[in-house]
C-alpha cells in the first residue's frame, strides 16, 4: 500500500517537474526543476530495488551534471526570452505531434496483454544473494567488458573533442619553461670582461 502511494507520488512529481523544466521562464528555475525530477526518479529506482542506480542518479546527475548545467546557465549570458520567441509559434504543431505520438504509444502499449516484463527472459538473471551493486559490477567487468571499455573510449573521444574545439594556443604569452631554465648554463648568461680603466664597457 505504502509502496503504491510512494510510486504514484514519485511518478507524478517526475512528470510534473519534467514539464516545469520545459515550461519555466527562468533557465535557472528550469535546472532546479530538473534536479527535482532526478530526485524523484531516484525514488522510483529505490522502489524497484535498484538502489545503486538511484544513488548514481543523485551523485552523478544531480551532483555533477545538473550543477554543471546550473553553472553554465548562470555564466553564459543567453537571452532565453529570445530563444523562446519561436516557441509559441511552433507550439500548436509541436503539441499536436507530441499528442499523436503519445496516443499511439499508449495505444500500442495498451494493446499489450502480457501485463508485465518477463523477468525470466533477462539475459543475466542475478543471483538473489548478491547485492545490487555487486551484481552490476560483476556483469559490467566480465560479460559486458567489451562495451564498458568502449564506453571509456567514447568518453576519451569526447574529451579529445572538447579539447580540440576549445583549446587555444595564445600567442604573446611567456610561459615558464622549467626544462629550459634548468638547462641554462652560466656561460650562456654571464660574461667576464676586464675593461681598461677609463674605457667603459661595451654591452
Amino acid at each position, binding site marked *: 500500500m505504502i509502496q503504491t502511494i510512494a510510486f504514484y507520488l514519485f511518478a507524478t512529481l517526475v512528470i510534473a517537474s519534467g514539464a516545469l523544466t520545459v515550461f519555466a521562464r527562468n533557465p535557472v528555475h528550469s535546472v532546479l526543476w530538473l534536479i527535482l525530477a532526478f530526485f524523484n526518479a531516484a525514488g522510483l529506482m529505490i522502489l524497484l530495488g535498484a538502489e545503486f542506480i538511484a544513488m548514481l542518479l543523485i551523485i552523478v546527475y544531480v551532483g555533477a551534471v545538473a550543477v554543471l548545467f546550473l553553472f553554465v546557465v548562470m555564466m553564459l549570458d543567453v537571452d532565453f526570452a529570445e530563444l523562446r520567441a*519561436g516557441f509559441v509559434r511552433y507550439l500548436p*504543431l*509541436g503539441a499536436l505531434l507530441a499528442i499523436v*505520438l503519445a496516443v*499511439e504509444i499508449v495505444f500500442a502499449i495498451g494493446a499489450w496483454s502480457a501485463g508485465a516484463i518477463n523477468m525470466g527472459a533477462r539475459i543475466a538473471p542475478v543471483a538473489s544473494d548478491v547485492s545490487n551493486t555487486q551484481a552490476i559490477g560483476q556483469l559490467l567487468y566480465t560479460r559486458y567488458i567489451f562495451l564498458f571499455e568502449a564506453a571509456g573510449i567514447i568518453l576519451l573521444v569526447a574529451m579529445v573533442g572538447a579539447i580540440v574545439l576549445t583549446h587555444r594556443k595564445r600567442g604573446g604569452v611567456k610561459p615558464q619553461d622549467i626544462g629550459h631554465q634548468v638547462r641554462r648554463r652560466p656561460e650562456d648568461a654571464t660574461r667576464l670582461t676586464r675593461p681598461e680603466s677609463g674605457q667603459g664597457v661595451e654591452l
Partner: protein
Amino acid sequence: MIKLIVFLPLLAALVAGLGNRMIGNVVAKAITTGALLTSCALSWPIFLAFVAGNASPSVTPLFTWMQSGGLDIAWSLRVDTLTAVMLVVVTSVSSLVHIYSWGYMDEDPDQPRFFAYLSLFTFAMLMLVTANNLVQMFFGWEGVGLASYLLIGFWFKKPSANAAAIKAFVVNRVGDLGFMLGIFGTFLVFGTVSIPDILAAAPGMAGSAITFLGMRLDTMTILTLLLFVGAMGKSAQLGLHTWLPDAMEGPTPVSALIHAATMVTAGVFMVCRLSPMFEAAPVAQGFVIFIGAATCLFAATVATTQTDIKRVIAYSTCSQLGYMFFAAGVGAYGAAMFHLFTHAFFKALLFLGAGSVIHAMHHEQDMRYYGALRKRIPLTFWAMVAGTLAITGVGIPGLAVGFAGFWSKDAILESAWAAGSLGVEGGHLAFLVGAFAALLTSFYSWRLIFLTFFGKARWTQSEHIAHALHDAHGDHHADSDHDNPPSQEDAGHEPAQHGPAAAGLSDGTGGYHPHESPWSMLVPLIVLSIGAVAAGQVFHHVFVDPEGGLAFWNGSIAFDAHLAHASHEVPTWVMFTPFVVMLTGLWIAYNNYIRDPGAPARFTAMFGPLYTFLLNKWYFDELYNVIFVRPAFWFGRLFWQRGDVGIIDRFGPDGAARAVQGGSVLTGRLQSGFLYTYALVMLLGLAGLATWAMVRF
C-alpha cells in the same frame, strides 16, 4: 578479287571522307579515283570471262551478319552473269564520273567530301548488285539511297537542293516500305532470305494463296507487287517518279552516275534478279508492263516540253527505265538488262555532255538561252550527237548495223510484240506505246541538240551569263541560284520572244565566249561515246540472242529462249517501226527548230491546254501536294500542336520537368537552415511512420 572490287571504294571513301581537309583535295581525289579505276580494271576481266563463257557463278562468303532462329543472314558476295554486267556498268561509269569530276568540280571548296560520297555510293551500289540475300541487297539499296540523298543535297547551302534531297529520300521511303514488306513477306513464305533458295523455291509457289484480312490472295502476286513497289521508288516509275527531275539539283556528275546510269536502274536489276519470282506471278507481270509502258509514255511526253537541259535528260531517263520495265514485264529480261547496259553508257554520256555544256555556259541550264554552240564546243557537240544517235536508236534494221540504243530498244520492242503474239496480255499495247514513245524520244533528243548547238546564240537573256560578264572571276559557279526561270507562256522556243533586251546586241552572244571543257571532262565523254556507238553492236548477241543469251545468262535470270526466238521472227513492219518513228521524230524536230522556228509557238497556241498539261508534268506534283502533302502537314500540325505540345509535352516531359523544378524549390525552402525545422521534419517523419505501422498493425 571481288572483295577488292567491292571494298576498295569503301576504303577510299573512308580515307577521303575522314581525311577531308587534312589530306587535301588532290590526295582525296587521287585516292578515290585510283580505287575506282582499280575496281573497274578488275571488273572487266570478270565480265569478259562471262561473255566468253568460261566463268561460272560463285559466292564469296565474308562473315555472318545475324543469326536468329531460322533467319540466317551472312555477308557474302555473289558473282554471276547478272552481277558481272552490273559490275562493269557501275565501276566503269563511276570511274569515268570520278575523272570527269576532277574538271567539273574543280572550283568547289568541298571536293574531298564530294569524292568520298561518290565512292561511298559506288560501294553501296556494288553491295547491292553482289548481294546474295535480300537483306544485304536492302543494305545496298538503302546505302545508295543515302549516298543519293547526300549528293543531291551536296550544295546544302542551296534551299532547293535541300528540298530536292529530302523529296528524293521521302519518295524513296514509300518504295522502300514496299520493298521491306516484300522482304518480310518473302521470309514469311519461303522461310529464308537467301536469293538462290528463294528463286529455287519460287516456281513451286506459283498459284498458292494466303489469307489476309479475310481475302484469299495469290502469294506470289502479293510478294512481287510489294517488291516491285520498291523498284518503282528507286527507278522513278510513274507514281513515284517525282523525285527524279528534282534530283537534278545535284552536281551534274552525280546526275550522270546515280540518276542515269546506276542507282535508278537498281529497280530493273532487282526485278531481273528475282525474275523467277515474277515469272510465277502473271498478274504482277501485267502490272509491271502497265507501269513500265505508262512511265515510258508519260516521261517522254513531258520531256518534249521541258526547257532545262538536265530535266529533259532526266525525263528521258525515266522514260527509258519504263522501256526496261515493260521488257522485264513481258519476260524479256535479257533485253531489259541489255537496255540497262547500253543506256548506262549513252545516258551517262548525255548527262556528262550536258554538264560540259553547262560548264561552258557558266552554269546556265536553260536551253532557251543556248544556241549556236556547235562551233564553240565542238568535242562536246560530237559527243552529244553520239549519245543522241544512240538513245534515238539510229541503225539500219536490215543490215544489223547501229548504235547502242538501236540494238537494245529494238530488242525490247520486238520482244514486246512477240510476247503479245505469244499471248502475254498487253504485249502488243506495250509495243505501240513504246513505238510512240520512241517517236517522242527522237523528237525531244534532237530538239535538245538543235536548241543547244544550232540556231542563233541567245545568251544575253541568261542571268548566269550576265553574272559571268559582270564578275570577271567566277566564284558564283558553285552555288549560283537558278531561281528566276522565264514565265511559262514565254517558254516557247522562239528567241525573238525574249524581249527587247536582246536587241542591243545583234549577235545574241552578249560578248560571252563559251570555252571547251578541260581534258579531264572530255576524256570520259570520248570513252562513253565509244560505248554509246559500239556497245550494242559488240554485245547484242550475248545479251539477247536466243542461243548466246541462254549460255551467257546461265540461269542468273529467267531467260526465255523461246521468247527470244520469237522476237527475231516478228513481222517486218514491226522490225521497221522503230526506224520509221525515229526518222519521223528527227524530221519534226528539224522542222520545228531549224527550218521553221516559229512552228513551236504556233503549235503551243493551238494546243494550249495540252501544252500546259505537259509542261506541268501532268500536274503530278500538284496532285500529290493536294492529296498527300497538305493533309500530312495538317495532321502533322494537329499532332504537333494539339497532341505533342498540348498533351504529351504538357503532361509528359514539360510537366515532369516543371514538377521536378517545383519540387526542387520546395525542398530548398524546407532546407531553411533552422534546427527546429529539421527536428520538426524528423519528428513528422517519425510520427508518420509510426502511424502507418500502427494502422497496418
